[in-house]
């Protein structure tokens, strides 16, 4: 009897071990795809530099490692990672629901506008009230801006790809109007808004770095969205709608509501990113407050395989490349826009490797 028990236990153990190894190897394979994609993109970047008379190896030595010099430069990377993680994690939710929100850039700007309004018009609040209020205003405004495209999609079947892009341009033009007109600080030489009151500023993480608590908020929210997508029934419904809206409708799910929720979550994250840019970094609203974080966030989400948890890593990576490209421009006059090329190649390589993996899987 004891021997049989022993045997059963061993079988169970080896089954558990097998399952463990299977999960491990699957995790390894799914991590391999983005790593390979990044390597291909870097190789392409090196080739591009070399072909145009620059030093190709700079891509690795400067773009990847060049910005890790001291605490300050690491802080700058994390500062850039903040909006990328926020936007990337938010877009993971939208993309999982098959909502192609290309409008994060515009949602970021609208969030920045709302944050500026709340941060400049109210005075005398405690920092414990005012700073969160600014963040909330940014998130709500971003959600509302994205909600326009969501509503037009569910009500009029207007393609969200086109409407979100048009809303990007409109948000940029709106910002330009506000900082040159009604919100302009008349005493400033450049078009910019008045400065946010001190209580509205996002608290800094370390006193002598620009890095603010936004990075913590971004990581916590990304983890939260991961749990939301994986564990909540609403997250499940979003994914079903994304995979097959007809099946979702047949199963009694409200497709329109899920589309709106996915749209608004991604918009809120982008709007929050905008609020942090104003309240945490610039303290004022400018015309070009974002160097294209909203578009970069798309690449962040795709590299993360639409997994908000992985978006923390891919956001950090893209922030590193962006910082590195700034160093590269200063040291070797390489145009900083190289980073866009690398992003594009990353997306294409992710797609290609994912297909390759599928093929290998069916062969095996």
């Amino acid at each position, binding site marked *: 009897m004891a021997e049989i028990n022993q045997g059963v236990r061993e079988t169970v153990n080896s089954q558990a071990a097998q399952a463990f190894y299977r999960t491990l190897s699957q995790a390894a394979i799914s991590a391999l795809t983005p790593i390979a994609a990044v390597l291909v993109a870097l190789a392409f970047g090196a080739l591009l530099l070399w072909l145009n008379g620059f030093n190709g190896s700079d891509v690795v030595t400067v773009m990847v490692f060049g910005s890790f010099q001291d605490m300050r430069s690491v802080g700058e990377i994390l500062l850039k990672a903040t909006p990328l993680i926020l936007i990337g994690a938010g877009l993971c939710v939208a993309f999982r629901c098959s909502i192609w929100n290309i409008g994060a850039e515009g949602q970021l700007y609208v969030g920045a506008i709302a944050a500026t309004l709340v941060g400049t018009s109210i005075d005398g609040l405690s920092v414990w009230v005012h700073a969160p209020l600014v963040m909330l205003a940014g998130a709500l405004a971003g959600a509302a801006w994205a909600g326009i495209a969501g509503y*037009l999609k569910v009500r009029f079947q207007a393609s969200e*790809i086109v409407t979100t892009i048009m809303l990007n341009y*409109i948000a940029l033009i709106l910002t330009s109007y506000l900082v040159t007109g009604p919100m302009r600080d008349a005493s400033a030489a450049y078009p910019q808004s008045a400065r946010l009151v001190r209580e509205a500023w996002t608290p800094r993480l370390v006193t002598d770095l620009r890095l603010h608590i936004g990075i913590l908020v971004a990581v916590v929210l990304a983890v939260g969205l991961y749990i939301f997508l994986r564990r909540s029934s609403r997250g499940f419904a979003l994914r079903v709608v994304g995979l097959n809206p007809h099946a979702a409708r047949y199963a009694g799910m409200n497709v329109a509501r899920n589309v709106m929720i996915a749209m608004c979550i991604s918009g809120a994250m982008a709007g929050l990113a905008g609020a942090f840019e104003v309240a945490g970094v610039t303290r004022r609203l400018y015309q070009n407050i974002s160097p294209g974080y909203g578009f970069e966030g798309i690449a962040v989400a795709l590299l993360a395989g639409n997994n908000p948890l992985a978006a923390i890593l891919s956001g950090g990576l893209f922030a590193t490349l962006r910082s590195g490209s700034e160093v590269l421009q200063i040291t070797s006059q390489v145009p900083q826009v190289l980073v866009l090329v690398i*992003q594009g*190649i990353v997306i*294409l390589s992710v797609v290609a490797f994912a297909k390759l993996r599928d093929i290998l899987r069916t062969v095996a």
Partner: protein
Amino acid sequence: MDDMISLTFLAALASAAWRLATPLIFASIGEVFSERAGVLNIGLEGTMLVGAFCGFAAAAATGNIPLGLLAGVAGGMLFGLVFAFFTITIKADQIVVGAALNLLGMGLTAFLFRTYYVSTGKGIEIAQPVHIPWLSDLPFLGEAFFRQNLIVYSTVLVAILAALVLYRTSFGLTLRAVGEHPKAVDVAGRSVVGYRYAAVLVGTGLAGLGGAFLTLGHSNQFVEGITSGRGFIALAVVVFARWSPIGAFFVSLLFGLFYALQLMLQAQASIVVPYQVLQALPYIMTIVTLVALRGKGAAPSKLGQPYEMR
């Protein structure tokens, strides 16, 4: 206000509208081909940028405008080949690939422009208006319609040719069938993949031409992001035009009118609206258009879907 309704103003408006519609006409007619075969190319913006840059670079090197236009078409098609390989051959998501190509187009053209041209500040000789005897001298009409360069005139030819190919040739019939019922085409022994490649190449070639017009027939310089959303607006034009090339021609003209109005009203001192409102006009109208034309109506039934051979 008197100035606004004068004939001179109207003639200048019509003339500017057609000129500003030209890149949209090329790009949207090209996209009609692509979408009729079931391929949605949201990478149009990046493709147009590549066309604008290649056209500019070739013309700056040779001083030859036709050669520049050809380079624009070739650059667009090269980009189209990448798009086709990813979306048709390895059946990747068309939207994801399109987004990647937009980033690539923006990044590559800006990178090369900053590396080689930005410091030179070099402009090029652009295509000049062609004087047509008698017609160009007509009062009002001459000024409104017959003082364009050859590229602008060619849009009419391209629209008619596109309609003929799409509706009156066996190639066009098969191409449309590929977007509606690829299985039938496959069973009939024709290559779905081949037709989709052809459609994408026609589409991106025309998008490249539209981009090249911006640098060779409109502004004499390449500027980063010179297309400023025209590739995306062309996508909306196609929906508004119900996937018809002639429709795309006229809808593009309407959008050209919005652009022209925006430019000309900005120059009017008597207008009190902030210029940003006018600036936003083409973008707002694109959304209004999409909403006004709710429903998919005439969309090819297999739009956006890769074809799986069984």
